[in-house]
């Protein structure tokens, strides 16, 4: 029925024919050309390649094959359908059908021909990678990558695509329709099911996570292997079925039946694989649901508290054999007849011994419960739990919902499998999140989201490793052969364990031991920072001092260890915790070879450092440059004393955070409150003093900033509703805004500095332990005679918000004797319906020059910042805030924290200051009671007013109309990156006019068809001076355009009492704020000012017009 000889013969000649096909040759050349360019651009030394591209030894062939996977599928579809289609035409190759070949020979021969060519082509792709890999001096080489990736990516893809193409064209008998259908299938997979269902449907392996870590290897080999095998085997089954259906050669009935049955049998086998895949995806989801439900059942059950825990753990391949000897105490007021522990559901409990006698224990998922006990209040009991097994890592981070849990973690174009723990023969990483040792805290559950108890037991850990692996945990290790014993000096909320082929580098500075644990081949930094060895301790001292000065807290541990972890190790942001699992007590888990973190790209950083020094005419020694690069790494990644250049707030919710701050607060202290579960996190947020990103582009994308989106949300929903319903990134932001608001509010009531000092000393006095909210509350009452409870309640429950109007802003340069000082007076009214806190900040110092703006900067200190001042403005109140400065301020920023204001952070240029000699300087705040009478001689029409209208006769393009029709959100404001072509749309920003909402309408410039009109209600006739509100010259164009002396114009049409005037107004000289347009006569009949969209610049803004009666 099947003849290998025939198949080989057919494939030999058919591949010859295919090879001579120009379509294939063009595709092959295009593919090779594309990958050559890609390799040159990304991996070669033509420019300095990014370290993240070179650091992983598996990445090069994987990147090429992933990139080519989609076009390759399209090419296979075209060629495969053509290959079978050819025979539709009667007689075409009948001369061959009379040969003793079966349909199966024929189909397999043709398929093999196709495979041969594409496999060869992939070999060339891979060889290309190999050439770049071997010739580059900085890449790491992993020969297996060149064998494993083609087998896992291209081959199953090609076989499956060919199989389905053959079958479809055989059944439909029409090549074009088949191609359209097949491309449609690929398209649907890519668009609708992109990253869905754990990428089970990703037949082209474009997003199936197959990234291999140099530390821990494949994240989930079984899943990837099964998924790829499924497509390979299904492809083969489809070839059999094609042979069954193909009506070229009448075969003997039995032969046809056997072909069909074989095809079906293989298909059934592959279906089982699909079922298993589905199960592999579904099981963790179900486990998580069950665990969350179980947490709900146990959350309210009183339990003992662990005082100490001595854990012994032996690593045996991918399992652990462990025991935990605990001293527990009944801290409740009642006799406990039942106690329980949590332990990973993959671990089996062997034995539980309570005060020396064996107890029957019941384990349900992760809950180990002991019944029929009698533990009196305050009684202490010894509990020993022996357990073994493997760790189900899906038990971690139950708080994370399914969508977020399953969401892909992007790493360049790849999707990276997320792993929360590792337990394999060559590598182990265990954090508290996977419940690898018994604990008494019940985790997340839906009923009482706020139940998350904390405790600080005294830990001891004894680890038996194998193969000479090094174990890393909290405390100083005592090593005896392959047994590591750890005994942390202080009680800790949790411990973690990393075991692997680590190398340790260590330095002690100011009695803190700083150690760096890296994998054996991860010493890339040694060469790049070779000159720092003798200055390292000074650098560390400076960095530590800078950080502790900023935090006002001292480092509470004896060591700080930086441990390299596999790329796939992932964590999440949490609602009730301010830290991610990358931070453990005394420990930072930094990503393998620095992952894609720019600051770890030392070579690139040194290059940037060089050009930066050149630009600034600095002469730096190699050592200074390296020191700068080192400081930049620590300050941007670990201490956050230099903010990121930019951010898109709200865009990514689980951005890794390696800040060491949790070691100062969360792992050192904590305030436990049954009622205010968020309080501890709020205090952490309030005390944390780290630099924010210098620019947030969320407004440019969405029209309003992410903070304002959250403010809008908090006006509509209570915090509890937000906690249970909103998207996580909004929960996180809302919580941190509420925290900021709460404490600045309290701080304002009892004195900002006093309150902060009080909190700092509270933490410093209660190190390595928990304190209760009640004791903190009492202490605050004693110290400040104020009860914070009602304030917390008010802040957490209220939805009404303040709204701030900056009524006036006066700026003077005052000669105070021979001293030049600067007085800024701001009159601010709170017209909202709640009390508000406003933070006023000044910045001075030259702003970065234009050319420098987009460059990457290394270790450049932040713009000179004058400490912010806060003020509470109660509902309906108007306050005059006075600031006296010694340095000329350039910008003034009003941060309204939680308010109705858009933008919620208003930054205004101080501009020119009027000179004043002498006079009293006012610093501080006072309430203004006299309301100014409204000025009837001044009329302002803003784009927010109903007297503003816009007109556009232009139809949107079909694409735009289609995209707009698909938008589900009712967006009011649009970002500047959404520059409208056919309409005037509102956008927001500090630079626009407005009281509470500063906005303007904008449109893409055109030929004058689109018009915006301001129509004033003129009460008194007469001559009016007209002003237009401008952002400044060139209206937000790219700064680079400034240098040219080109003049740009807006076109206004003034309808006044005497008729109509067209004005060409030169905007290149405009100042930020009101700019004079001209004087015209207006009477009660009205009149108007219109602005057309005609302009040489790309965008036209219509903001506000002011009429001032002469």
């Amino acid at each position: 029925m099947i003849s290998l000889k025939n198949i080989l013969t057919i494939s030999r000649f058919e591949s010859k024919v295919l090879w001579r096909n120009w379509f294939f040759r063009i595709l092959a050349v295009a593919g090779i050309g594309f990958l050559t360019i890609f390799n040159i651009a990304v991996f070669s030394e033509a420019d300095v390649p990014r370290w993240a591209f070179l650091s992983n030894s598996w990445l090069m062939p994987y990147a090429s094959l992933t990139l080519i996977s989609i076009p390759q599928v399209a090419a296979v579809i075209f060629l495969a359908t053509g290959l079978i289609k050819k025979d539709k035409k009667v007689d075409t190759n009948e001369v061959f059908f009379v040969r003793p070949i079966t349909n199966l020979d024929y189909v397999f021969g043709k398929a093999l021909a196709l495979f041969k060519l594409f496999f060869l082509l992939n070999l060339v792709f891979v060889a290309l990678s190999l050439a770049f890999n071997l010739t580059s001096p900085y890449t790491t080489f992993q020969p297996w990558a060149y064998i494993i990736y083609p087998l896992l990516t291209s081959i199953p893809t090609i076989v499956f695509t060919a199989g389905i193409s053959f079958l479809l064209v055989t059944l439909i008998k029409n090549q074009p329709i088949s191609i359209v259908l097949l491309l449609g299938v690929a398209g649907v997979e890519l668009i609708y099911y992109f990253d869905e269902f754990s990428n089970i449907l990703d037949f082209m392996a474009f997003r199936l996570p197959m990234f291999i870590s140099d530390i821990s290897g494949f994240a989930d080999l079984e899943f990837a292997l099964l998924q790829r095998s499924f497509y390979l085997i299904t492809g083969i089954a489809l070839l059999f079925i094609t042979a069954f259906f193909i009506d070229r050669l009448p075969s003997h009935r039995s032969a046809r039946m056997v072909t069909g049955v074989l095809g079906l049998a293989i298909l059934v086998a592959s279906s089982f694989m699909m079922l298993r895949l589905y199960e592999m995806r579904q099981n963790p989801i179900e486990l998580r649901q069950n665990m969350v439900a179980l947490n709900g059942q146990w959350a309210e059950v009183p339990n003992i508290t662990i005082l100490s825990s001595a854990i012994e753990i032996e690593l045996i391949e991918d399992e652990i054999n462990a025991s935990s000897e605990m001293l527990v105490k009944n801290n409740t007021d009642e006799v406990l007849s039942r106690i329980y522990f949590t332990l990973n559901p993959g671990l089996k409990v062997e034995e539980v011994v309570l005060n020396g006698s064996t107890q029957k224990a019941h384990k349900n998922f992760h809950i180990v419960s002991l019944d029929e006990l009698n533990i009196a209040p305050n009684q202490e009991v010894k509990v020993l739990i022996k357990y073994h097994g493997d760790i189900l890592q899906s038990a971690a981070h139950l708080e994370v919902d399914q969508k977020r849990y399953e969401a892909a973690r992007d790493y360049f174009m790849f999707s990276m499998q997320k792993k929360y723990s590792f337990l394999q023969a060559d590598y182990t990483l265990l954090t508290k999140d996977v419940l690898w040792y018994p604990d008494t805290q019940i985790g997340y559950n839906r009923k009482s989201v706020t139940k998350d108890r904390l405790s600080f037991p005294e830990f001891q850990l004894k680890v038996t490793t194998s193969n000479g692996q090094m174990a890393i945990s909290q405390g100083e290790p005592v090593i005896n052969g392959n047994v590591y014993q750890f005994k942390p000096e202080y009680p800790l909320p949790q411990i973690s364990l990393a075991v692997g082929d680590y190398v340790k580098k260590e330095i002690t500075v100011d009695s803190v031991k700083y150690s760096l644990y890296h994998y054996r081949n991860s010493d890339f930094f040694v060469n790049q920072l070779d000159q720092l060895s003798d200055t390292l301790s000074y650098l560390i001292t400076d960095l530590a001092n800078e950080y502790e000065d900023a935090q006002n807290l001292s480092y509470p541990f004896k060591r700080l260890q930086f441990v390299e972890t596999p790329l796939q190790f992932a964590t999440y942001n949490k609602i009730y915790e301010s830290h991610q699992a990358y931070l453990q007590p005394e420990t930072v888990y930094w990503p393998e070879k620095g992952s894609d973190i720019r600051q770890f790209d030392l070579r690139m950083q040194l290059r940037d450092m060089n050009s930066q020094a050149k630009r600034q005419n600095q002469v730096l020694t190699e050592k200074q440059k390296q020191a700068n690069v080192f400081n930049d790494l620590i300050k941007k990644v670990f201490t956050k004393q230099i903010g990121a250049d930019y951010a898109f707030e709200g865009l990514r919710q689980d951005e890794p955070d390696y800040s060491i701050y949790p070691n100062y607060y969360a792992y050192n202290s904590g305030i436990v409150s049954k009622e205010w579960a968020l309080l501890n996190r709020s205090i952490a947020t309030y005390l944390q003093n780290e630099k924010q990103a210098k620019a947030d582009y969320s407004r440019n994308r969405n029209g309003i900033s992410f903070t304002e989106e959250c403010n809008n949300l908090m006006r509509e929903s209570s915090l509890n509703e937000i906690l249970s319903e909103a998207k996580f990134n909004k929960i996180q932001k809302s919580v941190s805004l509420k925290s900021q608001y709460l404490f600045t509010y309290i701080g304002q009531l009892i004195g900002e500095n006093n309150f902060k000092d009080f909190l700092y000393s509270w933490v410093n006095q209660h190190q390595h332990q928990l304190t209760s909210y009640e004791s903190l509350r009492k202490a605050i009452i004693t110290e400040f005679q104020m009860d914070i409870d009602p304030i917390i309640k008010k802040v957490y429950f209220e939805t009404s918000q303040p709204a701030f109007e900056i009524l006036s802003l006066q700026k003077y340069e005052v000669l105070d004797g021979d001293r030049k000082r600067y007085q800024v007076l701001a009159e601010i009214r709170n017209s909202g319906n709640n009390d508000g806190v406003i933070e006023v900040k000044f910045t001075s110092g030259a702003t970065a020059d234009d050319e420098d703006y987009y460059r990457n900067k290394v270790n450049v200190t932040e713009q000179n910042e004058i400490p912010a001042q806060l003020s509470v403005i109660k509902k309906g109140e108007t306050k005059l805030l006075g600031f006296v400065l010694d340095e000329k301020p350039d910008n003034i920023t009003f941060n309204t924290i939680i308010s109705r204001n858009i933008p919620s952070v208003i930054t205004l240029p101080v501009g020119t200051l009027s000179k004043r000699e002498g006079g009293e300087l006012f610093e501080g705040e006072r309430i203004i009671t006299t309301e100014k009478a409204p000025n009837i001689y001044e009329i302002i029409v803003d784009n927010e007013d109903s007297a503003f209208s816009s007109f556009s006769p232009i139809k949107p393009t079909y694409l735009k109309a289609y995209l707009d029709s698909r938008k589900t959100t009712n967006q009011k404001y649009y970002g500047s990156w959404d520059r409208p072509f056919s309409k005037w749309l509102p956008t927001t920003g500090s630079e626009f006019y407005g009281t509470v909402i500063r906005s303007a309408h904008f449109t893409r410039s055109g030929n004058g068809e689109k018009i915006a009109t301001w129509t004033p209600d003129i009460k008194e006739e007469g001559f009016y001076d007209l002003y237009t509100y401008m952002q400044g010259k060139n209206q937000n164009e790219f700064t680079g355009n400034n240098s040219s002396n080109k003049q740009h114009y807006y076109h206004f049409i003034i309808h006044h009492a005497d008729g109509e005037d067209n004005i060409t107004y030169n905007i290149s000289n405009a100042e930020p704020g009101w700019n004079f347009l001209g004087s015209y006569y207006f009477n009660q009949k009205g009149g108007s000012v219109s602005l057309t969209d005609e302009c040489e610049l790309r965008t036209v803004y219509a903001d506000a017009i002011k009429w001032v009666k002469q």
Partner: protein
Amino acid sequence: MNIEITGLTKVYPNGHKAINNVNLQIGSGMFGLLGPNGAGKSSFMRVLVTVQQATSGTILMDGLDINEHRQRIRRMVGYLPQDFTFFSKLKTWEFLDYAAQLATSLKKKDRTIKVNKLLDQVGLLDVRERMANKLSGGMKRRLGIAQALIGDPKLLVIDEPTTGLDPEERIRFRNILSDLSQQDVTIILSTHIVGDISSTCHNMAMLNKGEVAFKGSPEGMIDQVRGHVWQALLDDEEFNLIKTKYSVVSTIPTDGKWEVQLIATEQPHPKASHANPNLEHAYVYFMENELGVSLV
């Protein structure tokens, strides 16, 4: 090879009955299959070479039922369809080599010898490196016959081999077939060109509307027309008159008159005399008189 065909019928899915209850016995040597276009010749041959399946009836080849022993039959058969396109990107020798590999189990060296020998035999050795689809019409037919012969078939089925060939090519082609028929090979040749059969076949059948209208030797068929073929030298007026009454087989203008050959059961004109019949006459006679098909 001995082929026994019994009750062979082929009905297409659209209901068209291409072959209707054909019973034939074909022995060694050349066998001609004559019939007008659409008579069912191609369907018959496609069934014979197992490319198509008959609706009913049996075909035994040397006693083997072709439905049951497809692979064995295919090993014995060489087939040259009426019209087929070559692989667009194979060279002449590669094309033949492809066929050789499927048809034989020869080693590469022997295969090359065989391919070259056949190319030489059909006069294509000089163009062996040329792409097969770049060959002229005649060359393509010759390459076609070469591929049909490559497996040393015991049965050679050739469908309309000389259509579109110039006379020189046609003669060359006939000669190749004649040479072959000297060997122990059954050659079934289908054509609507009578000359192809008369010059080569000893046995023949005539198909019409899927049914066998005649079977026997070409001579047998000619015998049936003997006495009914006439020739005469006629002027314009006589020629025009006679044209409407009788089947005129050939007309040759001679000295302002017409030398006419026609078929008639009785003397059509006083000037007419008996002429020697050939297969073409027989074919016309048969079609007109026996089957009632008007050819002229």
